[in-house]
């Protein structure tokens, strides 16, 4: 299982802030997880698709698309940050 978190506009567009997910065997990277989630439907496709400005963190550290994802990880998807 992994924990997936969504923040800000993404959380609203997807209608959820977090979920637990069992990781299919072929999903071993951030990019693969994103593709796996996009396959859920049009809403997910547009929120996580290539046109979406997205940032990803694995275990609370900013991660690239090629970063590994393993059971027990916490993966977060969010828009570019706007604090300060």
């Amino acid at each position: 299982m992994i924990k997936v978190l969504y923040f800000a506009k993404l959380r609203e567009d997807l209608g959820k802030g977090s979920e637990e997910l069992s990781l299919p065997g072929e999903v071993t990277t951030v990019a693969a997880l994103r593709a796996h989630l996009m396959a859920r439907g049009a809403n997910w496709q547009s929120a996580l698709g290539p046109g979406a400005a997205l940032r990803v963190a694995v275990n609370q550290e900013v991660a690239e698309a090629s970063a590994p994802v393993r059971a027990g990880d916490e993966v977060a998807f969010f828009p570019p940050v706007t604090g300060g």
Partner: protein
Amino acid sequence: MGIRVQTEDFDIAREIAALRATNPKVGAVASFIGTVRDVNDGSAVATLTLEHYPGMTEKALAGIVAEARSRWRIIDVTVIHRVGELKPLDQIVLVVVVGEHRGDAFAACEFLMDYLKTRAPFWKKEQTPAGSRWVDARGSDDIAAERWAKPKRDAA
């Protein structure tokens, strides 16, 4: 050093006094406060809601402070960022840097704000007369942060 993410307001005088009280070597105090404006991108802003990523936010801020300490000669830092619902005139963020001399304190304070704005996981949502909208990240903030990139060393 203190890093706090909180809904409550803060008092800069009290925060500066706390940093100075324990550090008699301090000869310079540099600070920045960010506040809520009543207009943004041409629309009146009634309220501003700040969301963050608990856990990662504190880690990201600690990493940014550690980076500032490695680059400049400074003695101590306080960073406070508010979350939740704010309104125009409210304070959003405070950075205080104390050091021996002003040059490093000024630079570290500006660096901390530039990195906080582009690296700490906070998001702003504005409530305007036309409805609510998430604030878009600004390219000018990325450019401000890139100024601090370390020059790459040429291969000898």
